[in-house]
């Protein structure tokens, strides 16, 4: 019976902790909820390989454009054909310019880069 008064403060503390709720946020990773976060990293980031022997080059919208657009709700634009041409043009530019990359980028072509490179 003499144990009961000692439990009192403990119970009070426990109740207080419960009422205050979670003391910290936990990081989340799940297949669908954080797919956009995964895509942001896996499609745009990562080690950059400084070598001539790369087939895919960062910055070129070769893949994932449709998937990202769909996730971002930009389906409307792709659906009605607004974006398709841009995509095609930037791929064509990339093909044409891959050989020239080694010799450096001129200012004029640099301007072209700004306009035609659309991810």
């Amino acid at each position: 019976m003499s144990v009961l008064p000692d439990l009192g403060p403990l119970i009070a503390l426990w109740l207080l902790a419960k009422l205050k709720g979670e003391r910290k946020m936990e990081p989340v990773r799940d297949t669908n909820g954080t797919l956009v976060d995964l895509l942001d990293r896996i499609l745009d980031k990562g080690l950059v390989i400084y070598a001539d022997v790369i087939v895919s080059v960062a910055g070129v919208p070769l893949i994932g454009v449709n998937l990202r657009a769909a996730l971002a709700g930009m389906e409307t634009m792709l659906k009605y054909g607004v974006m398709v041409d841009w995509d095609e043009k930037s791929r064509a530019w990339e093909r044409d310019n891959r050989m020239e990359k080694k010799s450096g980028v001129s200012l004029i072509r640099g301007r072209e880069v700004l306009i035609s490179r659309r991810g």
Partner: protein
Amino acid sequence: MIDIDADNLKHGVLGLVIALVEIIRDALKIQAFKRMEGGSLKEDEVERLGEALMDLDLAIEQIKQEQGIGQSVQSVREGLDNIVDDVLDQIINPERWGEESCEKQMERV
């Protein structure tokens, strides 16, 4: 190639057109406001400007509603925002777009 049919003509091309009209309208609003703040307008001029802009707002909303292109217009404007963002990003961060990697390649050689 863009395949043109009635539906995507409406959403694609009309969406673009109305998005552009909205952007011009926004620019008009800014100019009108500047003039008003600058004190160069009389009260009745401000009144007329305000009414005209109000009518323009209503007209645009009406077209969007009647044609059902509200979402398309929003998508176009967001798309344009993203493009502008990317262009700025290329200026601020050229390495991310592959150009500095060429120069670095040259340095190594």
